[in-house]
């Protein structure tokens, strides 16, 4: 087994009386794509934002690339890239100006065109963020996570709201980034996506982790337990694991 780049131990996050994250522990290995799966409100984003240094935790321990979150959050910021769910960008600036701004915030210099080339947006260098299509917006968001050449990037629902083509296009991009050596932690509601992308996934429900393994293992286990799909196409897919584990078909946010 490869080396852990993220270690989360007994993480708890409480908002007044509500416990969003309830004593979870997991590890993310160097160079893998790790998926946090679960229904809305399960605590995925909260967990992600604590690791991203954006949210205080109530208790627990988080170590990212040997840096303790309590002691050196600034060191962590330097080695991670973050894509937020539905975040906007500084108004009235074009893409290359936005990259220039971010590289200034990281204190490094970056060639905006080189970075835009990685996400196939060089022809949009002079366009504003709001003028981009959904898929282009997400590709640009991912580009901004790569500015500081991070060890780990966090993607919060990167493909939500995209059409199938844009989604597959983004999968290729995410796999490329991982193949270049970057560890990726992502959340998603799409089980087919998790099955294609993730080396390992953790299911979170009501603030607790209820299973961590590879998608294949989860599926095999479910099939071995005697599970059968009503309509026989394949024995099962990851979506079945999701529903089986959480036991809830549909939840509003």
């Amino acid at each position, binding site marked *: 087994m490869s080396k852990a780049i993220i270690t989360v131990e007994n993480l708890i996050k409480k908002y007044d009386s509500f416990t969003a994250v309830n004593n979870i522990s997991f590890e993310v290995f160097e160079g893998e794509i790790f998926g946090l799966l679960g229904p809305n409100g399960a605590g995925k984003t909260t967990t992600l934002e604590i690791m*991203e*240094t*954006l949210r205080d935790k109530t208790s627990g321990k988080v170590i990212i690339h040997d840096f303790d979150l309590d002691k050196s959050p*600034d*060191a962590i*910021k*330097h080695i*991670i890239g*973050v894509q*937020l769910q*539905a*975040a*906007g*960008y*500084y*108004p*009235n*600036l074009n893409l290359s*100006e*936005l990259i*220039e*701004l*971010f*590289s*200034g*915030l*990281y*204190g*490094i210099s970056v060639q905006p065109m080189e970075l835009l080339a990685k996400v196939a947006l060089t022809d949009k260098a002079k366009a504003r963020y709001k003028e981009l299509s959904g898929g282009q917006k997400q590709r640009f968001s991912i580009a*901004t996570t790569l500015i*500081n050449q991070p060890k780990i990037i966090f993607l919060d629902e990167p493909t939500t709201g995209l059409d199938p083509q844009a989604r597959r296009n983004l999968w290729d991009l995410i796999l490329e980034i991982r193949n270049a050596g970057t560890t990726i932690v992502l959340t998603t509601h799409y089980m087919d996506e998790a099955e294609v992308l993730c080396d390992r996934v953790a299911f979170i429900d009501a603030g607790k982790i209820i299973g961590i393994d590879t998608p294949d293992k989860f599926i095999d286990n479910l099939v071995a337990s005697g599970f059968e799909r009503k309509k026989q196409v394949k024995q099962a897919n990851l979506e079945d694991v999701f529903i089986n584990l959480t036991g809830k078909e549909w939840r509003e946010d």
Partner: protein
Amino acid sequence: MTKKYSNTKATLAMAKASFRSILRSPSAVVFSLAFPLIFILVFGFIGGGGVSVDVGVDKGSDSQNPIYQALKSSKIVHLVEDETESEMKSNLDKGRIDAIINIQKQATRPPFIVNVRYTKASLEKGNIVKSVLNNILYEANRTPDAPPPVAELRESTVEARVYKTIDFILPGQLGFSLLSSGVFGTAFVFLSLRMTLVIKRFFATPVKRYSIVLGEAIARIVFSLLGALFIILIGYYFFGFTLIHGFVTVLEMLFLSALGLIVFMGFGFVVSGIAKNESSVPPIANIITLPQFLLSGTFFSITAFPTWLQPISRALPLTYLNDALRQVAFEGATLMDVSHQVLILLIWGIIIYAVAVKTFKWE
């Protein structure tokens, strides 16, 4: 990390981004430049570039004397000589002419007596005539063969200088432009950065909070001072705005502008903290800007207000910025001379930033 992280570099990156954004934002340009310029243009033309007074010359008046010649060459005084005595008298009663003079030569000393009749219909302009005459008599009395100067003629030069409409309007407009840019601009920027999670995304980078605020402040100050400089230069070259000590006066005005803007930005931070969304910014910001627009001597001198209203005017920060700008530009006051106004602005600054620290929200 091979290189040490530089907060200065991050701050400057913020400032550059913000400055670019402001330049491309139509509302910032309209509020800071177009709005005050339109007012200056309107008032500049109403004022005709300067005050002038109509002075009737009595038929029996002597015209072979230095005082008459000086009046004739004055740009402020327009001499009315082609009216009959009764026409002149009636026009004086109606305030159509502001004064009638009659200069008499006599054998004894002093050689000339200047009789002036003012009218209650035009007291203000009468005062201008009075100060112009005082000035002329003072000059005349200084000549070696004339009698020694009379005490009451000793008017100071400042009082006799032409106070043009632009000299009043421009500092008021400049002050108001700084107020709206400081309050509206700052409030909108920080609210929208917060609402669109731009600030949250910044927090995932190593940037410090103060770098974000400082970068925004630098951009706004640079933009507003460029705007102020532009307004002052337009006023100076096209409308004869008085800059007593020239370039030094401009620098002093820019210093006061920066101070005023920093105080007003404090209000902007408070508004951005209180406002729930973008549409609640204008009402809250107007509560702060509108009373100052009306009561701080932007259009009229606050001495023109009823006495019960004046204490309110004298509590507002814009009053002191306007006052300091006018004194510096027109009366040639130094920054030390306006230290009272500067002090009150500083006190406002301390109060408002104390409130801002409590109310400002990052997320």
